[in-house]
């Protein structure tokens, strides 16, 4: 039996998109499979790895832990909506400059987490950065350069 599909209107990266999906469909499934925004990654699918991190209403969210039908009119920003017309965002550029990218699978989630951290706290300490990133796993274990990139943005002497 096919599950009944529900209509939702999502605002993703400033665009209004109509979606028909089962109630059990997560925001992650909908952005990847229906809206073709594949920058948001599916890692663990239960909230531990952080690869699917997006912004909902300007705050961090695990896309795998939100039902698409429950997002309502809260605007969603995915990694595709982070860069401006000129190219990469400053967080993305800092990760490139620090060589903080290996396989790249976790990178979209780290970009979202760092973007939210620096919006709330422009000059975090190294400990604050590490704590803010504790919910993002890098399977290449490249954490040191990711934290280095964040410290450059923080303009901190211990960068």
């Amino acid at each position, binding site marked *: 039996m096919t599950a009944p599909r529900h209509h939702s209107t999502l605002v993703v990266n400033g665009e209004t998109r109509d979606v028909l999906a089962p109630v*059990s469909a997560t925001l992650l499934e909908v952005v990847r499979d229906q809206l073709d925004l594949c920058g948001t990654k599916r890692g663990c699918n239960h909230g531990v790895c952080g690869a699917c*991190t997006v912004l909902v209403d300007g705050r961090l969210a*695990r896309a795998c832990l939100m039902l698409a039908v429950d997002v309502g009119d809260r605007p969603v920003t995915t990694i595709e909506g982070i860069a401006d017309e000129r190219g990469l965002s400053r967080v993305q550029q800092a990760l490139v400059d620090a060589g903080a990218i290996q396989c790249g699978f976790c990178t979209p989630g780290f970009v979202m987490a760092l973007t939210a951290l620096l919006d709330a706290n422009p000059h975090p300490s190294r400990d604050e950065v590490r704590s803010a990133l*504790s919910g993002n796993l890098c399977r290449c274990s490249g954490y040191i350069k990711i934290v280095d990139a964040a410290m450059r943005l923080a303009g901190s002497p211990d960068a």
Partner: protein
Amino acid sequence: MNYVAPTTLAEAYRALQADDAVCLAGGQSLVAAMNLGLASPALIVSLRDIAALRGIETQADGGLRIGAMVSHAELAELGPSAPGPELLSRAARVVAYPAIRARGTIGGSVALADPSADYPVALQAIGASIELGGRSGTRMVSARDFFVGLFETARATGEVVLAIHVPPGPAGAGAAYEKLSIVAGDFAIVSVAAIGRDRLDIAVGGCGPTPIVVTGVGASDEALLAAGRALAASCDAPSDHRASAAYRRRVLPELLRRTGRTALERASA
């Protein structure tokens, strides 16, 4: 699977009469369980549009009435407060990760009653109460009676956690919440909440199906360690992928002593 998002409690209570209906609060546990194939409810009743479940009200005595849909992030950011609310705020700051704290709610965490979660421990140390609502009215249950077993609470089918009532705590008391975990934000291996001034009320999480409470513990290191050793000897600590039962019993007394010391250092002289 169906979905409704009522805007009033009366509508929510009516929807929850359906067979196999569940409340969706922040979704940080329910949706994970659905993704893992551990939950497949017939009807999801989303609580996100019910204004009555939002907001934090300060009571005349300095205590708080915290709406069930208040997020961990909101509680983590509470300003200067009486010792009871301060203990809860300290616990909220170490619940999971920033993305989870932005979405997860106190009502959802309390209703789930995970044995390694942070709020049940803090709420029992403080002596908070849980306000429940349903078709037959509302009732208050002490947090120390609310958590009855592993993922089991005093909430009846069809009832909704409406709010958490946090008393101010004793005048001049200090409060502390410490958890031992593998990385910042992971579920606790062992956690301890302590509040008091000359004597401490203490709750311990991660060492059994529900938190364990001990009240009126003396302020000396010896008294704290003795209380910790007694709890370690009597608790039903689990062995899981985070730690063995023996490890939990080994670290409990010292974590309890440190948490107690921190609370006492924060008490006004």
